[in-house]
């Protein structure tokens, strides 16, 4: 205890002494240097300093920002609340947590007043500028998804590729819907490229949505991405009523024959075929389909396993973190808090519904032309949303007939939906670029 007092006494004494030493002692420093250092020396007076600190708090930032524009004050606060809400959905409700948690954190960080984390010079600005504006991060994710995807079910039953096409109807009908909103709702002013970005939510494919909106309508990137991932998470809620409404109980009970084995060489050829068709017919889709095919080829070719392992683990994880933060950093109050965002959210769910319905109806159409019937429940899996949509098909089918295993059959249209979305995205890029 003695030492305790002693130390504090010494500390206090030293400090007092230091601060008590008159400034004139510093005369060794030359006049010029002193003048230069003067500015540095001018820390404000104590009350002023307290005031400065107070005006650098976030609370003050919300209030003062609000004075200039509500999106710089209350708006930022609301966006932080939205960020926490997205965290809740991601963590407690397990809505696509890999992306929603990272996007949510990016959103919170970007809307902290005075911190400027997504302004030029801030960390999230670099992330957005380097990874998202250039399209690199979504393409790397696509490469990782390629390295994760098994096209076996599609190769075993190539007809199901057509179901992955029908679901793209959601993209284009939503595009029209966005143009309709833009025409008739005052305050909503979507251009054609905006509408295309909104339509792409209907692809039910995260990286494709981010890539297209970063290229065609960067100002909508945040809202479009959040809508895409949110509705992908809501697939088990959105799809079942539509699927049931469009099918009879007999149709839902259709059993499909077991899939044939697929050889290694067929698997290797698939990404090469997709790439070749893409380069011959739709070069604008080449970045998307190219990186997807590259990932899938690394996976299937069997000679670069260490690369495909890293691609679908360390690399995709690292990129996911930065992609999420970068997308979240675009959820700025000044951009997002508008009637247009409501429109995007509304159109997004319409896109999912139309995509689901189109897939189911296409399956029924195919049945009317073919002997070997397919269960129309697998049509809804054509929207992408891998593997959630395929699980929904399995689930609804098993409710009618618990012995009916549709999962593998639904993976065919499910992965076809990814290819179909990339093609649709390529069309939009070809038209607008």
């Amino acid at each position, binding site marked *: 205890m003695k030492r305790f007092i002693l130390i504090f006494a010494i500390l206090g004494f030293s400090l007092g002494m230091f601060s008590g030493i008159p400034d004139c002692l510093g005369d060794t420093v030359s006049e010029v240097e002193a003048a230069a250092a003067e500015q540095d020396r001018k820390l404000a007076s104590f009350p002023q300093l307290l005031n400065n600190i107070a005006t650098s708090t976030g609370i003050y930032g919300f209030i003062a920002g609000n004075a200039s524009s509500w999106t710089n004050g209350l708006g930022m606060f609301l966006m932080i609340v939205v960020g926490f809400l997205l965290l809740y959905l991601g963590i407690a409700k397990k809505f696509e947590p890999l992306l929603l948690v990272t996007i949510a954190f990016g959103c919170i960080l970007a809307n902290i007043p005075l911190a400027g984390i997504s302004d030029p010079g801030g960390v999230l600005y670099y992330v957005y500028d380097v990874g998202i504006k250039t399209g690199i991060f979504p393409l790397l994710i696509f490469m990782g998804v390629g390295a*994760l995807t098994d096209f076996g079910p599609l190769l075993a039953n190539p007809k199901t590729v057509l179901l992955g096409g029908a679901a793209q109807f959601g993209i284009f009908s939503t595009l029209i819907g966005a143009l309709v909103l833009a025409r008739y709702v005052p305050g909503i002013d979507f251009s*054609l490229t905006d509408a*295309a970005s909104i339509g792409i939510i209907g692809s039910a494919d995260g990286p494709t949505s981010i890539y297209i909106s970063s290229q065609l309508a960067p100002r909508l990137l945040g809202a479009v991405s959040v809508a895409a991932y949110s509705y992908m998470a809501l697939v088990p809620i959105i799809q079942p009523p539509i699927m049931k409404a469009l099918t009879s109980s007999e149709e839902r009970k259709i059993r499909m024959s077991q899939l044939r084995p697929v050889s290694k060489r067929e698997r290797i050829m698939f990404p090469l075929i997709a790439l070749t068709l893409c380069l011959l017919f739709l070069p604008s889709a080449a970045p998307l389909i190219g990186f997807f095919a590259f990932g899938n080829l690394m996976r299937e070719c069997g000679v670069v396993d260490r690369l495909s392992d890293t691609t679908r683990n360390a690399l995709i994880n690292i990129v996911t973190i930065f992609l999420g933060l970068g997308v979240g950093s675009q959820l700025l109050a000044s951009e997002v808090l508008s009637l247009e965002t409501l429109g995007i959210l509304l159109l997004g769910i319409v896109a999912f519904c139309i995509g689901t319905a189109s897939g189911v109806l296409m399956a029924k159409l195919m049945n009317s032309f073919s002997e070997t019937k397919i269960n129309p429940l697998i049509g809804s899996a054509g929207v992408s949303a891998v593997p959630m949509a395929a699980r929904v098909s399995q*689930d609804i089918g098993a409710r009618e007939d618990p012995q009916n295993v549709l*999962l593998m059959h639904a993976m065919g249209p499910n992965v076809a939906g990814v*290819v179909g979305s990339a093609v649709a995205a390529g069309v939009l890029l070809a038209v607008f670029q």
Partner: protein
Amino acid sequence: MIIEGVKLMVIGMAIVYVFLIVLMFSVMLSARLFKDSGAGASAGPVTPVKSRRNVTPVIAAAVKAYRTKRAGDSSS
């Protein structure tokens, strides 16, 4: 401007389907050319041994999640 959207839809869906149909036939052709026969064949997604190695994590996760969910549903 809405008419532009309709144009896009017509052209877009047409291209999507042309592409996918060509892809479908290419895949069928590839299957004819590269389908292994007999014992040497690497098995497809529903056959045992080798295929199990080939089933993607995605599908494996889907199956597992589905089973877990079913188990949860039936117990509740």
